[in-house]
């Protein structure tokens, strides 16, 4: 299991990393934290398992770009990325690039306003055999907005090429990264996937939670609470 740096988004990188590493999980390195000098070396020396996500950069708040505007190529080396937003110039070209490149990153399921933001788009991705990171909170927004049918959600749950599962809570309106509760949408499925070996990434905001509450979030995510 991994805890995303975005759980303490905005905090200095090293402090956020160290606080999250105390939870005893791996850490997913995500964009949005303030750079601290020597962060890459600090991570390497920590021995903590890491994965990289989207526009993470060890020396900047985020990489300048994830998708090349002209060619649609993914220009970061992260393990998983978000597909482009609808108003991103790369929106029109990234799919062709992605389909043609076998050494491609995992792409995350999104919500309306992004590529892979609807059930139909995800159905096409599954048909084409793309490897997905399924964010259950994004799926909840899709379901709430009527962008994904129950059958499409069921098909996604059964899909065999899921390489990451991301969990956080929201009200179905915005991607607010709120702490998990027992009945968070998709949580039971995420736990089952995790138990079957798929990496699980907790990515709810932990800024205002003390160490005990953070541990409870970790345990709630993996079903050991």
């Amino acid at each position: 299991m991994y805890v995303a740096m975005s759980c303490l988004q905005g905090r200095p990188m090293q402090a956020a990393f160290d606080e999250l590493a105390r939870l005893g999980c791996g850490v997913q390195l995500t964009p949005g934290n303030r750079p601290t000098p020597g962060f890459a070396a600090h991570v390497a020396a920590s021995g903590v398992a890491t994965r990289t996500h989207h526009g993470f950069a060890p020396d900047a708040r985020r990489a300048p770009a994830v998708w090349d505007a002209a060619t649609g190529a993914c220009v970061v080396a992260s393990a998983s990325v978000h597909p482009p937003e609808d108003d991103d110039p790369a929106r029109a070209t990234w799919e062709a690039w992605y389909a043609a490149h076998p050494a491609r990153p995992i792409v995350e399921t999104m919500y309306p306003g992004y590529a892979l933001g609807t059930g139909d788009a995800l159905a096409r991705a599954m048909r084409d055999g793309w490897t997905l990171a399924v964010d259950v909170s994004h799926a909840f927004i899709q379901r709430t907005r009527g962008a994904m049918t129950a059958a499409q959600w069921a098909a996604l749950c059964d899909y065999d090429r899921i390489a990451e599962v991301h969990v956080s809570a929201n009200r179905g309106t915005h991607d607010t990264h709120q702490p998990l509760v027992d009945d968070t949408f998709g949580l039971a499925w995420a736990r089952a996937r995790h138990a079957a070996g798929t990496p699980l990434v907790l990515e709810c905001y932990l800024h205002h939670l003390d160490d005990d509450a953070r541990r409870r979030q970790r345990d709630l995510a993996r079903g050991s609470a």
Partner: protein
Amino acid sequence: MTAAWTRFAAVLGPQIPTDARSALVALAHRRWREGPRLEGALYLSSRAVPLWPHDCDQPTEACRTCAPERVAAVERAIAEVGGAALLAELGDELEPTEAPYALVRDGVFVVIPRAERAGAGWTCTVDPAADLARIALAGFAPGFGAGGGRHALYALAAGATTARIELVATACFDPTDGDRAAIAHVRALAAAALGEPGGLERAVRLQQCVDWSRAMFARYPELRSTMMCVAQYWNDNADDECHAESYASVRDTPLFPHPCTYDWDRDEQAAPPENGEWCDRCSPRDRGGFGASWYASTEGFEAFCVEGANQDQEDGERHRPFAIVRRAGDDVALELVGRCRRPGFVLGAGAAPAPWPDARAAALAEEVDARAVLADHLLDVGDPRGELIARELAGGELRDAATATLRAGAIHPLGRVLVVGGARFARGALVHAEVHAATADDVAAVRGAAAWRTVETLRYLPGSRALLDPAMRALREAGEVGVDDLAALAALPALATLQLAIAKPADATRFAACALPRLRHLVVTGADALAALARAPWWPQLERVTLLDEPYGALPAALAEIPIVAWALRDDELARPTGWCAALDRRRARAEIALAGWHASTTLDGLAELVIPAARRLAPAVALVASPGFAPTADDRARLGLDT
């Protein structure tokens, strides 16, 4: 000149107000899925050349949004001539985004040369010998995000290190005295930031906020103030982090949280809100738009935002006020009210100041009450700091590079622990410090510093290491102070107001044993520690106790003999009082309610439903009193059923 264009100019020309000195016709060749279309707009100006990109906040400029009554609809002229005919003639020359095509003066349409239309934004050329930076606009770039915008101009000016700036007139830009005044002001704002991280970004946005406020005050004479608020929350790409919200008010300070009256049923707001509080949604649009053109950059504003906010929260929960602009005669006055809410945003050590010219100056510099004597002495010995201190003593707040240099010297080496926006000055000296020391090295670096000697109030951000220091001999108020500061407390005899951090019961006993001969006002969170504190030798001398995060109006027995008891909330990010503060007087006959700090709960409804009923249970008379951030009106008192 082509036939369709000539007809277009003949149709549009007579519609352009004759009192406009110039106008720009901006056109775009839109390539919609349904087919190509010509779109355009007209921009009027009292300059020789309208500003491009157009800026609704500049008083010289007018567009169909900010001056709908003045600006002709280009669409009608396009329709009359025929968009297809115009596109056939001009289409290859036009960009897909709106760009100036023709300049109109005295009714004459002059097509702008293509080189000027495609030109870049502002350029800055430095002449080191003259200590001068010349800023010019190289050309009209397409689009409203073009580099010729106000933000880019202000950023160049604020970042220039030369003593002087010259705005160069070109075919694309006709500078005004208003531009020069704005440039001087943004440079002063940048200088006042003392090199703080993000200070230049804040200066630029603040200047844009001032411009916007002036424009709002000009359009709506009933408005007296505006408020710029900031919030931080993220989309999943972490590329959309800080957000700004702006409000305007007929009061001297807008209410916060903003009591929005937008009519969602009709989805419009035709008339001014009856409560006199306006936002982007509930403002009327009859005299132009409301929306501010600036936004809050992450680098400039994240330190001032509530942490962990999100899109589903109410405005009052996720935003915090950062700046207020008020009418001040024919001018405006800017007040910065945002506070750094995050550790890790400190000014930085900075450079050591030049030594004082002699021992007498060095001794006088340590006395906050001797600033005039110090100024006179420095003037006598020819030290330029004398003039700066004298000016500050005479004129209050000063913002320029020289003052900044003086102040940077006045805080050295405290910049290592002073948080951004956390230094306040008076009489040329540091008098208020908001601090956070992350490491033992930070503490050691500032221990015993002479710069502490003029500090009168000190606020810690939570999590700071202890910094109280016998050098702080002018210190009258401190908070939130933990037991690690106990030894230093005993050496600060002037301390009159103290907010305590009591982590465990034993802490209260230790504070009670401390000598605090001048303590008059105690602030404490919760009531659990009161019994232990009440055994302190200084307890009988207290004139006021403020309880934080205790129910309004629940009077603990330990406070029975305390002359004034007050209740407020605690801002956990700042460790200081916030929300409505209700204070019960010594005869328990009158409760006064004031604003301790902006908070999601500081609404008039909150007063009516919670605070006033609680106050009425304690005292027969309840009054609403003025405080920084809230000046009650007669209407407020009437609505709340309170005496004037």
